[in-house]
């Protein structure tokens, strides 16, 4: 009955069955993904919100924090540049994870049954859902990346970074959507999902370094940031986005506030000693080697994908 039902010449029964099953599994993934995309695209408020949200994060949060940093630090650190990868991570994170609520919608409206009773493998359905969520997250990611050259300059280097950031953000999105799917598969109530997700997500997010540099933290918090897989994800995005970019601008000299005539009378040795005593703001752009970040993010995404497929398949 299926379209690939004919056995080809010289094909063993096993090969045929395998080909047929693989094809069916792929078709299932595609259809589930396509449906989620159609639903997304037809929901105009959601489409607009999705587009505008990352821009709000970047400009309001980034500009606000940049100003705050100037006040606190007295320097002109380009905090918005520091924030950019964090906001990229944050956008991908939240959109990915919350996209899984569509599973609960489908459960509520009965459509999940239609999918679950079909002969498509459950794993295909789970993967289709995960790719659907990751795609939505990446739409937002791409909107942010379009703004990338405005902050970091229009250059071949910027283009290269954008090209590198897309697959890395997608990797992160797949891992995070998987968390959402794994949890949604175990939940019956629509109301509970955001609560549970926030409980899990907010600590992960705050400890990831997306919002503030993970420097000078108390020891226990540093330990938490080290076991948070998201730290490595944000570190990875930041490492690439800020590679070769100076975000620490020239700190205004402490002597600028003192009248020139007075300054001239300070002996040069004393001047140097004073200048060294004033702490310089030095933001860490990359805490771990890139290969380590990448390894952990890939491992995390694969494990989460596995868990999501397992959890989704076992539901009745």
């Amino acid at each position, binding site marked *: 009955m299926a379209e690939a039902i004919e056995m080809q010449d010289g094909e063993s029964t096993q090969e045929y069955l395998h080909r047929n099953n693989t094809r069916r599994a792929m*078709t299932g993934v595609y259809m589930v993904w396509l*449906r989620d995309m159609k*639903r997304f695209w*037809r929901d105009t408020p959601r489409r607009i919100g999705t587009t505008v949200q990352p821009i709000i994060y970047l400009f309001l949060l980034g500009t606000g924090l940049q100003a705050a940093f100037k006040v606190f630090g007295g320097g002109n650190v380009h905090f918005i540049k520091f924030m950019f990868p964090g906001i990229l991570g944050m956008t991908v994170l939240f959109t990915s994870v919350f996209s899984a609520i569509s599973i609960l919608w489908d459960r*509520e409206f009965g*459509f999940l*049954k*239609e999918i679950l*009773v*079909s002969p498509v493998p459950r794993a295909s359905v789970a993967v289709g859902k995960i790719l659907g969520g990751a795609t939505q997250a990446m739409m937002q990611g791409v909107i942010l990346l379009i703004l990338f050259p405005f902050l970091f300059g229009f250059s071949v280097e910027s283009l290269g970074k954008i090209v590198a950031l897309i697959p890395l953000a997608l990797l992160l999105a797949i891992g995070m959507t998987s968390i959402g799917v794994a949890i949604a598969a175990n939940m019956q109530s629509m109301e509970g999902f955001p609560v549970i997700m926030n409980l899990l997500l907010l600590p992960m997010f705050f400890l990831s370094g997306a919002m503030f540099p993970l420097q000078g933290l108390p020891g226990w918090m540093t330990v938490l940031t080290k076991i948070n897989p998201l730290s490595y994800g944000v570190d990875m995005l930041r490492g690439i986005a800020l590679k070769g970019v100076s975000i620490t601008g020239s700190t205004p000299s402490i002597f600028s506030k003192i009248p020139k005539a007075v300054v001239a009378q300070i002996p040069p040795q004393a001047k140097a000693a004073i200048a060294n005593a004033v702490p310089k703001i030095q933001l860490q752009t990359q805490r771990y080697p890139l290969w380590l970040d990448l390894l952990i993010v890939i491992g995390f995404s694969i494990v989460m994908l596995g868990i999501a497929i397992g959890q989704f398949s076992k539901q009745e």
Partner: protein
Amino acid sequence: MSKNGKGTIIEVTELVKNFGELVAVNAVSFEVETGEIFGFLGPNGAGKTTTISMLCTLLKPTGGRATVNGYDISTDKHLVRESIGLVFQDPSLDDRLTARENLEFHAVLYHVPRNIRDSRIEEVLDMVSLDDRAEDRIETYSGGMKRRLEIARGLLHYPKVLFLDEPTIGLDPQTRNYIWDYIEGLKKREAITIFLTTHYMEEAEHCDRIAVIDNGNIIALDTPENLKDDVGGDVIKLKTEDDDGAKEELMRRFPDLEMLPDPECKLCFKMEKGEEFIPDLIRDFGTKIVSVSLHRPTLDDVFLQLTGKEIRDEGSDTKSGMRVARMRANR
């Protein structure tokens, strides 16, 4: 494709489903013959949907076994799923998609070959008279249209068995008749077995055979006619000014009288040739009679006789109504 060719298409042996302490389905066994309309009749909570869910591989049985189209429901899930069409009790369409898109989704999921996919979709849309609404989104559909589309969808992939779980629940009588016309037409047109559940007695009359289910047990299984014959004779309902006194008088005058165990009706009894009995009854009856009614046995009486209670719509419609209201509130 059925391994046993003509004959039985569903075989159920000692099927059990427990939810914790609760025994939802208590070791039921039955067979469904190829090409018949087989009905599961029982009140809400009797275990109808649980049984159907197990046969459709949506629920894992606690015990026992069953085959559908020759495939085991526990070990050959995919083959079972390909053999069946399913219309759920609750709506299960994607209302953001058009009717055609819903059907396309289903057709691809069920591997309907691409070269016949479009023509098959036209065919089923035509069958349920929704061809002119194919490009409209489901959110614009009425309840009856949605149900018709779900039936069309259930037929799309040429299933051997079509499961209909309460196919007419929550629909108005006119739409209900409409749906039944389709179901009966289907049986004539397509080589298909129909397995349905219902708690509407009138609907059960459409079935070739009925299994009466209560508290997870099948308490009778036969054709509607045979079941009604088993009730024996007509049912006479008597209303008097003093029911207790009348009952005493009845028992005294007609000691062989078999009273029906209905708590709602104290003076209901069975009688062969009831129309000839009524004149005898009312002549010289001491208690003042308010009304006498006679009716041929219905499935209601069958159920009453078997279980001592009537099947009622015990809030099922309000519940699903509330569900719809809640879903709207959530949107």
